[in-house]
């Protein structure tokens, strides 16, 4: 289109447009400053900070038990994994050995969280492209998982189920039954998802060869998680640096090499199957024992630096804690997956149209509170 205008001999002028902060497809308060030539995107400049709550600074005044609930509010769709990352960092600092039962429970709940996050992403992805149907279908199946969480953890979204040393309560007696019910239910429903969206001609036209991200770019921007793996970047922390019970389960790291929007979609769909596979292996083999290791009422980490990385539904979350042997940390830094994934948006979007930008953003699966913290 750009060349056409040149041929016609008409001078075109670049112009700017604000997408957001109150735009339904930015999934929160993200403002994108777009430089456009007609409908072609020349540059994308994300402006963030609209939902900054200074979580890292607040951590410096809170005890180690109190930090955990703040991380719920970062990436609220993978809240259990965020909590787990903080707890693992604190446990590493205390050199505390958590019971086997805790490791397995944490892994199962993590995978359920990943499933619910991907279900919501699938629904919202369809809605961004103009199909409200998928949104309702995704939420229908997600409801079963939130019910499991509500029964065992006490809340649907911001669960705060982890505490340093274990989990807050033992699993509810119904937990295993309900989880198995969900797995059998969702195994039937996942093919429905595929039929509704994957093969659809409109969907394919809007996602294939759109928003290409090469493997080199993915690595240099630090794009991790399903978005990175769709570009061929093998970055699954569960495989590379196993934590909790991931060393004893068998699963496949889903990697595609296409690097376009469709590949990112397919990776997430396959990851849902892998998550179900992991849960199936563990749900009948939860070891008996305590649900929490004994910790002191006031936790003081020995002086030093502790880093824990973890695979959330969006990519690699790093928790970096510096302790000066007081009851609250000297400094906490979160390396959030959303922030790094967003940085690649400019490279992906150049030369595409505005409508494609929406598709790209929804497959990057941005959660804005995670970017701002």
């Amino acid at each position: 289109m750009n060349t056409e205008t040149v041929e016609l001999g008409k001078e075109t002028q670049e112009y700017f447009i604000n997408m957001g902060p109150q735009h339904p497809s930015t999934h929160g308060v993200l403002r994108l400053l777009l430089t456009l030539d007609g409908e072609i995107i020349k540059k994308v400049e994300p402006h963030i900070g609209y939902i900054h709550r200074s979580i890292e600074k607040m951590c410096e005044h809170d005890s180690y038990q109190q930090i955990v609930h703040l991380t719920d509010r970062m990436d609220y769709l993978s809240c259990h994994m965020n909590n787990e990352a903080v707890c693992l960092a604190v446990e590493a600092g205390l050199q505390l050995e958590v019971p086997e039962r805790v490791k397995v429970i944490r892994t199962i709940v993590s995978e359920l969280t990943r499933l619910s996050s991907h279900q919501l992403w699938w629904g919202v992805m369809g809605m961004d492209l103009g199909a409200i149907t998928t949104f309702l279908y995704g939420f229908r199946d997600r409801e079963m998982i939130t019910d499991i969480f509500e029964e065992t953890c006490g809340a649907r979204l911001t669960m705060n189920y982890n505490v340093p040393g274990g989990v807050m309560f033992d699993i509810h007696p119904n937990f295993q039954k309900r989880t198995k019910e969900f797995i059998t239910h969702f195994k039937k429903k996942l093919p429905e998802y595929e039929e509704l969206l994957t093969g659809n001609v409109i969907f394919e036209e809007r996602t294939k060869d759109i928003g290409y991200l090469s493997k080199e770019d993915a690595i240099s921007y630090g794009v991790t998680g399903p978005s990175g793996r769709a570009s061929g970047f093998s970055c699954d922390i569960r495989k590379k640096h196993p934590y909790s019970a991931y060393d004893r389960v068998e699963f496949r790291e889903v990697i595609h090499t296409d690097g376009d929007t469709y590949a990112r979609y397919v990776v997430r769909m396959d990851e849902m199957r892998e998550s179900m596979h992991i849960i199936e292996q563990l749900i009948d083999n939860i070891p008996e024992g305590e649900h929490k290791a004994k910790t002191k009422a006031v936790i003081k980490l020995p002086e030093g630096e502790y880093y824990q990385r973890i695979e959330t539904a969006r990519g690699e979350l790093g928790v970096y804690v510096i302790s000066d042997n007081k009851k609250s940390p000297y400094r906490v830094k979160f390396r959030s997956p959303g922030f790094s994934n967003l940085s690649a948006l400019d490279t992906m979007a150049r030369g595409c149209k505005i409508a494609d930008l929406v598709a790209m953003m929804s497959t990057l699966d941005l959660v804005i509170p995670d970017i701002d913290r």
Partner: protein
Amino acid sequence: MKIAKSVARYIGDVIYALKTLLTGMKITGYYFFHPKEILTQQYPENRDTLKMFERFRGEVILIHDENNEHKCTGCSACEIACPNGTIEIINKREVDPETGKSTKAIDKFVYHLQMCTFCNLCIIACPTDAIKMSQDFEHAVFDRTQLTKVLNNPGSKLMPGIRE
């Protein structure tokens, strides 16, 4: 020949597109004729039958028994455990009429619901299990001041045998 081929491809594309669209329509059509599989709850109407799970975190309450006695000794463990300053415990000195000893007792257990993040840390911290989370989730009020609650009933006392 060339035209015939392109026409054939065009028709093929149209048929493929229609087929993929109909696959999606089949699913939505199935649910249209099976309304029993739809899970919508009629919320305000089903209030009487709607039961939350036992561990659901609605709001903090102080448990009172039928003699208007509670288990809170006023140790402030929950106040320290709370990350947001939601709980405020105001103590008073009470003189036991029998022994003449002066003991600490709670005057007011103030709970600021507007600051609560429902993290459950206060419930875990409580050494006497005096507080718990209720299943009530309808917190909407007309004025913000109504969210600051005094949890101990007027005239309530400490349950005997708790302090030991």
